[in-house]
């Protein structure tokens, strides 16, 4: 039950993009078309869950055991970068269909702060393995949800006649603000 509450909280209330401000660059960058938004969302779910599991293990069995927690930033980014590289090679060889679908979004995930942010949040909240896994998965779902919703709205917004200075990123951010406002209404749920 606690895990269920955590999952609902991470998807809606503490949505990683709209409430925690992580992963804004891919949020703005890949939301101009629905296809790219779906591709990015899938790639993030995939990598975030794996990164959550691996960084949790690295932190518990390596950094804490050896008492070198100050190397956390350095080791997490290396783990994520090599994980992304590895996943890319693995998918290319064994599941070419999925690889073609995710395409260029996989390498971009290395610099997606949502992935590293989730890993750091899991460690900061001192979750155990299962909780960390649930949290990573639901944050990733929240990322996908916000990204796909935003892409849908943005496709419509860009058809309108927008004043020149407001075009593109500017109106995108204002739209995101209004979506974030609707998400604040989930606050009383859990």
């Amino acid at each position: 039950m606690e895990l269920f509450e955590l999952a609902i909280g991470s998807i809606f209330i503490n949505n990683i993009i709209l409430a925690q401000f992580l992963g804004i660059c891919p949020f703005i960058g890949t939301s101009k078309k629905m296809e790219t938004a779906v591709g990015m969302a899938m790639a993030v779910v995939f990598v975030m869950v794996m990164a959550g599991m691996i960084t949790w293990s690295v932190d518990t069995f390596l950094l804490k055991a050896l008492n070198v927690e100050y190397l956390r930033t350095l080791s997490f980014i290396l783990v994520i970068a090599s994980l992304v590289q590895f996943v890319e090679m693995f998918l290319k060889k064994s599941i070419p269909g999925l690889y073609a679908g995710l395409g260029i979004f996989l390498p971009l995930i290395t610099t997606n702060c949502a992935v590293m942010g989730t890993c750091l949040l899991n460690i900061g909240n001192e979750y155990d393995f299962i909780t960390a896994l649930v949290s990573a998965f639901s944050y990733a779902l929240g990322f996908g949800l916000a990204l796909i919703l935003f892409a849908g709205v943005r496709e419509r917004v860009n058809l309108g006649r927008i004043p020149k200075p407001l075009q593109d990123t500017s109106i995108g951010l204002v739209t995101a603000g209004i979506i974030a406002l609707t998400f604040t209404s989930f606050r009383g749920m859990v």
Partner: protein
Amino acid sequence: MAQSLAKEFTKGLWAEIPPFRLVLGLCPTLAVTKTVENGIGMGLATTFVLVFSNLLISILRNAIPPKVRIACYIVIIATFVTIVELVMQAFTYPLFLTLGIFIPLIVVNCIVLGRAEAFASKNTPVLAVADGLGIGIGFTLSLASLGAVRELIGAGTITIWGGNPVFAVGDWYHPFSFMVEAPGAFVALGLMLACMNLIGKK
């Protein structure tokens, strides 16, 4: 030489000021600008990382093999981020707590990696430092100004350093707390971006 040095420095202050002209590094911009103080703290931490990673990458630019350059840049940047983390934890602990995970996340800030790839890897160390300093100060100014707008409207105060407001509007003002909440950050940044577009690209 002096002329191009000045040019590399000043372009970060207006012509390529992040995050308005270069739309990069939006996560810290939105997350930490609840007050001017947080904005300045985040800006200075990023500036430190930018200057030193630019310097080191520029010195090593002929030694780093092109195929693994991104991985090398990330390790260099992560080293300086760790230094900033430890220094802030020791000397500015309250600020360290407010900025939270956004300090380790300077590692994945696209501005730092972007400058390493686009500038430091192709130019001499002196120019790279000028570029890093310019972009860093520009970023600090942007964060401070966005923080000022949000804090003034959202809380009716301006806090520059140390947690005490240097300016308060007064009791007659009812704070519009939308601006210091998450949705207000998006709207404020979007509108400021529109103002910058209105003033015109260089």
